[in-house]
């Protein structure tokens, strides 16, 4: 347990992140190849939606990741506000751009699916509107983070905004149950058998694992840059620069 706390320090976390990035990049590539192979080549057309349903193999993982990343950010926000750990604020900053990207991709790929299926690129449905709100929360956090000169104040203000925004997560998740929405209900749940063919579920899960591994690789890579910048006056960063080991993902 104490070794886990050791990695809460940027000095210890920086080289660990560097070692993990290539592994998660490789995993992301492997899962994506498997998921795309099953989803685009092996899986047959859907009896109702034809070929259009294949968009769901990227739409659903994007939507899941956009919510999951925000959930993780909320955890780091609690750590930032209570324990005031330096790394937690940097992790929030590193997660936010990828979370925003996945939220935007969930909306955009949803539009590509909605046009041939619903006949419209966009509808003010509870699920789509609450996901749009999630994208605005990410963008708001990024804007707020850059609005302060004092980084400690920026960290606390950003953490507070993230915590307030968590109210939106159950709204997104339960929106298809609470309201009569055009967006379909969940096809996969922890308590019931999936309402999709096994090959489709497998492809979707592989693509979700790829998105998960990709996110970890990108976020660890980004947080390394943020650690270096925040700790630029520290002796260990100066030594790293002197040894020429600060660039790229290897440490």
């Amino acid at each position: 347990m104490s070794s886990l706390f050791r990695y809460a320090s940027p000095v210890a976390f920086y080289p660990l992140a560097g070692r993990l990035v290539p592994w998660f990049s490789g995993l992301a590539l492997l899962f994506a190849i498997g998921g795309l192979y099953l989803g685009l080549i092996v899986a047959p057309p859907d009896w109702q939606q034809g070929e259009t349903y294949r968009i769901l193999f990227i739409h659903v993982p994007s939507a899941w990741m956009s919510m999951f990343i925000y959930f993780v950010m909320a955890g780091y926000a609690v750590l930032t506000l209570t324990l005031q750990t330096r790394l937690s604020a940097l992790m929030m900053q590193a997660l936010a751009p990828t979370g925003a990207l996945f939220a935007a991709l969930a909306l955009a790929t949803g539009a590509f699916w909605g046009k041939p299926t619903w006949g419209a690129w966009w509808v003010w449905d509870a699920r789509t509107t609450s996901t749009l709100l999630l994208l605005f929360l990410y963008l708001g956090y990024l804007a707020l983070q850059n609005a302060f000169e004092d980084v400690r104040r920026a960290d606390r203000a950003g953490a507070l905004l993230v915590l307030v925004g968590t109210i939106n997560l159950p709204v997104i998740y339960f929106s298809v149950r609470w309201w009569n929405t055009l967006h379909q209900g969940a096809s996969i749940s922890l308590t019931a058998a999936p309402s999709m063919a096994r090959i489709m579920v497998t492809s979707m899960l592989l693509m979700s694992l790829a998105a998960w591994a990709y996110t970890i690789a990108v976020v660890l890579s980004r947080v390394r840059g943020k650690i270096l910048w925040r700790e630029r006056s520290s002796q260990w960063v100066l030594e790293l620069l002197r040894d020429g080991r600060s660039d790229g993902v290897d440490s």
Partner: protein
Amino acid sequence: MNLSEMAQFGPYVWGAYALFAVALLIEVVGLRVAQRHIDAQLRQARAMADLMQREHGSNRVKGEVS
């Protein structure tokens, strides 16, 4: 499934996949560029500090926060 069958997926499917791939590619390339930028800035600051130390015997650059 062969390539001609995959072409039948239509513009919506391929449009969505192309957008997805381009977005992730931009993020990865952007991240790489940002890393190089940070590294160049840090190296420049380090070189400046070394120069100051040689000339004045202090490695603290004006305005630098320790």
